[in-house]
């Protein structure tokens, strides 16, 4: 049996014209396939929504509180373990220094001072070298290379900003 266009009419959910209704009614009397489709459509449209048992929101609050409590407990233990680990590793790494400091604090202080003085001198030397390079290098590099570097930097920043804007606009998704 040809189910067209009756099947389409039943599946479309669109209201039918009086002539179409009469034709469909006549077809449904003879066609069990389309009659089943009509019955299912009717059943789907007429069945009520199921409701939860009384006190659903109250049970949710209890569950939410329990989850928050579990989270706090997890955070507390996580933080405690992390702190103890950091302290332990720190002690283990600094133990030679601590031992020296406990044995002869003056010697340790003197070695630290000498280290700081040498560091200061190194930084000063690096500053001199950098200022000389800044004066000399621009003369070696042609102007178009600077332009390419500027354009590449600008383009990269633009892509970065556009990506950030896109993600800020569409944060949805669970």
């Amino acid at each position, binding site marked *: 049996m040809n189910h067209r266009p009756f099947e389409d009419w039943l599946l479309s959910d669109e209201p039918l014209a009086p002539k179409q209704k009469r034709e469909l*009614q006549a077809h449904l009397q003879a066609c069990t396939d389309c009659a089943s489709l009509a019955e299912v*459509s009717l059943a789907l449209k007429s*069945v009520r929504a*199921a*409701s939860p048992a009384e006190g659903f929101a109250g049970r949710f609050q209890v569950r939410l509180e329990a989850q928050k409590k579990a989270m706090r407990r997890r955070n507390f233990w996580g933080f405690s373990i992390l702190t103890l680990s950091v302290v332990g590793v720190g002690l283990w790494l600094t133990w030679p220094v601590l031992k020296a400091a406990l044995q002869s604090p003056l010697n340790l202080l003197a070695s630290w001072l000498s280290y700081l003085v040498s560091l200061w001198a190194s930084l000063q030397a690096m500053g001199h070298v950098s200022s000389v390079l800044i004066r000399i290098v621009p003369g070696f590099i042609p102007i178009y290379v600077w332009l390419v570097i500027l354009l590449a930097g600008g383009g990269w920043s633009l892509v970065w900003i556009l990506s950030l804007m896109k993600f800020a606009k569409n944060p949805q998704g669970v």
Partner: protein
Amino acid sequence: MTDEMTWIIQAQHGDSESFTLLVEAYQTPVYNLCYRMLGEAELAEDAAQETFLKAYQNLIRYDVERSFATWLLSIAAHHCIDKLRRRRFTSVSIDEDEEGQTDLPDRSAPDPEQETVRKQEKDRLHRLLQSLDPIDRAAVVMRYWQDCSEIEIARALKLTVPAVKSRLHRARKALAELWKEEPRHIRTQRRPYESPAF
């Protein structure tokens, strides 16, 4: 600003009382979707509670320009689909109603026979729904119980609109096939020409 938007914004700032108002407002659609998807009241209760917990945790990511109902139903549908994928659903009790109690016909109703037929039809449809693919089932429930548009279903289930149309079409045809195969003694007495199409 609507009450709902006020509650959402307050809940986004950590006010769980405001979120509870949202739970009260949306408990039925969310529970109904879970119940139709999972088939049992106890599982539906658990899934609906989990849905609201997930929504609470991810509320900061909710885009206020979209429908909150669709967002919630999307979480519920994906939660149920995941649950169904993790375990194969073997059987569904047809003796349970929405509250998980025996669904006896209401003898005090004006027409107890009609009431019995209505309950049989409801159970039957509920049972047949369980035979559908989980995503098709979610689409059917959202379309017929929650009155969602095809665009909303597509957004919620991360499908295209033509895919939603195709799934709804396929699901209803599959339901009609199963409906026809069921024994005649539990078929409804309603005539097909009572269909809304007329």
